[in-house]
């Protein structure tokens, strides 16, 4: 049976090697999950002019998209989806004056670490 102390030494040495290697390469990074949005998820609103989603970490402008579809699946946004120039956690797209109904926001983002997350939600225009 392996001596307990020898085993602990092996685990500690392995852990230290991992930490040294890990920290030598890159700063910390994270998944990008939505934090809040306007209109809010599932909300009923009046005459919005844009859809904005704030994420919990910065996202890559070149690889992040946002579109808005109506109830028939037709795209209805202005086609100007972009990441905020001053705030890289913000993804937004302009929308024209839309009739009452339920609309679906479809987004896809890549975090600065390279991880892609995507999702969709609905809101209603009264």
């Amino acid at each position, binding site marked *: 049976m392996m001596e307990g102390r020898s*085993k602990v030494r092996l685990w500690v040495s392995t852990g230290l090697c991992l930490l040294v290697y890990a920290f030598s*390469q890159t700063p910390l990074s994270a998944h990008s999950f939505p934090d809040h949005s306007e209109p809010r998820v599932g909300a009923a609103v009046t005459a919005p002019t844009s859809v904005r989603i704030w994420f919990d970490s910065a996202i890559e402008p070149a690889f992040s998209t946002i579109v808005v579809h109506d109830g028939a699946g037709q795209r209805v946004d202005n086609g100007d989806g972009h990441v905020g120039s001053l705030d890289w956690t913000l993804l937004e797209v302009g929308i024209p004056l839309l009739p009452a109904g339920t609309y679906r926001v479809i987004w896809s983002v890549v975090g600065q670490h390279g991880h892609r997350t995507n999702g969709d939600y609905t809101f209603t225009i009264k």
Partner: protein
Amino acid sequence: MKHKLVELNRHVLTTIDPAGKEALFRKRHFRLLPSILFALLHTAVLVVLLLSIPVSSWAHGMAGERFFPSTLATDDPFVSDEFSLLFSHIKEPGEGDNPPTKTTEFPFEFSKRITPNLGISIGDSFRYLSPQGSKNVSGMSNMEVGLKYQFLTSAAHEVILSAGVSTEVGGTGAQRVGADTFSVLSPAFFFGKGFGDLPESLKYLKPFAITGVVGPNFPTRSKNISTTIDPDTGEISQNIDRNPTTLTWGFSIQYNLNYLQSFVRDIGLGAPFNRMIALVEFPLQTCVSRGCGGQVTGFVNPGLVWFGKSMQLGLEAQIPINDRTGKSVGVLGIVHFFIDDLFPKSIGRPIFP
């Protein structure tokens, strides 16, 4: 590696007639083998991790919009780069000559992706035992190694399916804390299913998900035989502890508040609740051989998980399902690090794309 369940052993005492006593053989136990194996595995892990091959990163535990957290008592269905530190405390019931024992355990596990869908894990545990009426003992448990292959991921239906095998390597831990000298081989099937594909009329059920694991546990030795000789009569007694085959079957039911806020309805939850998952785990085990067939032990573990940008915290109560498992409620906690988020360009990426 997850929290160990109470194991069943049938203790049988037999007596051999001194006049017809047989020559008893002591099996030579190759104590060197587990040490060599441990050292080889340790070296292999270091070599593998130091390979620097640029590959893309894949998000852990994600199927479409569904994030599956690392569960505490049942193994989750995905492969990933992660490190878990757990804490467990419970009073285990006495059995036979073994008194009731307060058991405090600190398991830890490191998981590493070899390819985006194939991962290995290695773990161990420090145990502190306080037997009733006896001295406290502590020490390391047996090491566990595992291999898992995630063979199906469906974004549309939020499904993850995996298969794998893990081994508790006998002889790598301290017998004084219950580490066995034999190994246990455990093939298993893992699944995860989120309910985001439910119709809109059931939208408030969409944040629900279930995960689970099922698989047998085969000990490499069917029984442990120990002998004692009465110094007065010379009578030889043989103690036989049977090592039964068991079936692990566990599952969790989860309700993801972040999923609710992000994809169903923003109900105004602020931090930390908007990053929480309420869950109940059911780690269960059925003894299927060697005189204990059909006996079930396990727990119901209600709890909460909070996940941040690079780590996850969790806390659960451990409620025994029957007296055979125990009569005391325990506690289980986890600090879990998403290595692929923390170090995406080094140890947090698959070794081979």
